[in-house]
């Protein structure tokens, strides 16, 4: 997978939200939701993006699709720089990159039928002739595991899992190359979650999709991803192939995240690293290494100097002054 073709390259991507106050709406600060993130996604892989809520992973996904405009940096998709693409040309590119949203209750227009929802993108890009539209929508419905009889129904008649299937049908209708799943499983029941996960896996094979899988749930990410990217306060702290990440994480934050995943074996012993306090405000991120306020092994240099993302082993990147100082074995 490492040697595959690069489908998406993100270079030093930044998204700052201005914080305004006062009569003249003066900018009094910036919320640095995404602060200089760089990575690549290879064709055919699944890159899992993990991190606590508020670390900027959703903003990252939306910025890549340019649903929010980036503050700085570059987004290169399939060899084309789409960072400053004018709206008309951006719309053409949208066919190739789709998103599955977190909340299946807010992501479907309550006043549109299932058919209208799924065929909307197909109509915009004129992928399927009008005469074949119904057939195509029925095929998509069955592909995501829903009955073709649902075509005339409205979203409120479905359960959360079914709605997420409709949402997936809408996303794959255009045969995109990249699908960004933003917490696509988080609002579902555990049993439904594994079904949808399986569906995503099948669709990936069938339509040769590439996933950017954003989630706070390491257990889910572990099941589907080839590589894992960990974000903390708008920065990438670690990026590694899955096996290596789970066997030998190098960043103390990654270690803490992995150790927090419950092991379904009561006999198993593992040291748990419990992080103190909350994620600091992205409005005033800590100096130096952003994690130093919660790091169990923080030194003086951590508070002064910001570590850069470095390739420690082949394909294993980490941003830490003392990589490997905390291990899973304790």
């Amino acid at each position, binding site marked *: 997978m490492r040697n595959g073709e690069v489908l998406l390259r993100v270079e030093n991507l930044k998204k700052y939200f201005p914080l305004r106050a006062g009569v003249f709406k003066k900018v009094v600060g910036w919320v640095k939701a995404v602060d200089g993130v760089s990575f690549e996604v290879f064709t055919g892989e699944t890159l899992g993006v993990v991190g606590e809520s508020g670390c900027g992973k959703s903003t990252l996904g*939306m910025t890549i*699709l340019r*649903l929010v405009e980036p503050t700085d940096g570059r987004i290169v998709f399939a060899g084309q720089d789409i960072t400053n693409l004018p709206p008309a040309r*951006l*719309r*053409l590119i*949208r*066919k190739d*990159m*789709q*998103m599955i*949203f*977190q*909340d299946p209750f*807010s*992501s*479907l*227009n*309550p*006043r*549109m039928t299932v058919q209208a929802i799924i065929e*909307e*993108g197909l109509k*915009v*890009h004129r992928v399927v002739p009008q005469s074949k539209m119904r057939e195509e929508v029925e095929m998509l419905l069955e592909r995501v595991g829903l009955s073709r009889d649902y075509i005339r129904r*409205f979203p409120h008649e479905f359960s959360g899992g079914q709605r997420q299937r409709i*949402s997936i049908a*809408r996303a794959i209708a*255009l045969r995109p190359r990249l699908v960004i799943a933003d917490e696509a499983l988080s609002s579902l029941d555990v049993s439904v979650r594994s079904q949808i996960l399986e569906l995503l896996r099948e669709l990936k094979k069938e339509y040769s999709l590439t996933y950017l899988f954003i989630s706070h749930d390491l257990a889910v990410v572990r099941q589907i991803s080839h590589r894992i990217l960990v974000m903390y306060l708008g920065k990438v702290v670690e990026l590694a192939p899955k096996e290596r990440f789970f066997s030998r994480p190098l960043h103390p934050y990654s270690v803490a995240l992995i150790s927090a995943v419950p092991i379904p074996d009561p006999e198993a012993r593992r040291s748990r690293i419990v992080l103190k306090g909350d994620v600091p405000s992205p409005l005033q991120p800590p100096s130096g290494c952003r994690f130093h306020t919660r790091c169990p092994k923080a030194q003086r240099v951590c508070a002064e100097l910001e570590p850069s993302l470095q390739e420690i082993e082949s394909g294993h990147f980490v941003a830490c002054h003392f990589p490997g100082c905390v291990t899973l074995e304790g």
Partner: protein
Amino acid sequence: MQEETRKALRRLFSNVSGVLGVVLLGFFVVVALFAPLLAPPKSGRDPYFMPVVTWSADPLPPSREHPFGVAGKRDIFYGVVWGTRTAFRIGILVTLASTAIGLFVGSLAGYFGKILDEILMRVTDIFMAIPFLVAAMVLTTVLGTGLDKVMIALVVFSWMYPARLIRGNILQVKEEQFVLAAKSLGVSDFVIILRHVLPNAIFPVLIQASMRMGSLVITAAALSFLGLGAPQGYADWGALLNYARNWMLGGYGATFKYWYMIAFPGGAMVLFVLAWNLLGDALRDAFDPRLRW
């Protein structure tokens, strides 16, 4: 959608005030439709002008020939019946025009936001800051009198309310993920507003429009009462009340001597406004998503 509408209608008709509003409104519609039968106009004349029925300037009380009495030499019954058409015309045209303008301005402001929102909303504020009746009076004196001028004045000073309302609703709907989803499908902004945002934001505006329909008729009547609206002899409730201006205080020792001059056109107006308000209330209840069943 159809099922949704059917459910809403069922809720509408299980509501006493809703039924009352619909019945009242139905009554006015029937009167307006059958005006030529209820009060036959003299052939060859514009039916919207009340024919002169007497040479005496004094009002005449209700009689067999003139069931609502006579005011300003004209039959009040004829005026009330044909005035229903005038009321509907003013109400519907002004409401349609002001709602359309308001929807346009409010959608632009709400959806595109930022500097456009700022500019449009400040303009809206300026229009709202001007006292409505005074502004309408000034505008009609500038434009000249006449019903069409009154309607223009009413539109110019009432589009802000739907604009404000739709903007607020759009700001809320805009944050829904299905709008982002449509964007990521490559749907154009115009279509997003039309298909995704407006249908989910428009109901409160329609309900407000129904309520405004009634109050606009009162305002138009007020302008007519002041002599700024309908021309002499035009079948309009406000114009009928205008005839009553000099007789309102009654005769010596008989305060309510000329009651019919006010009671019939005034009563029609009150019932008309009431009908729209009841309907608006019932619609709000029927379309409230928290009351779905």
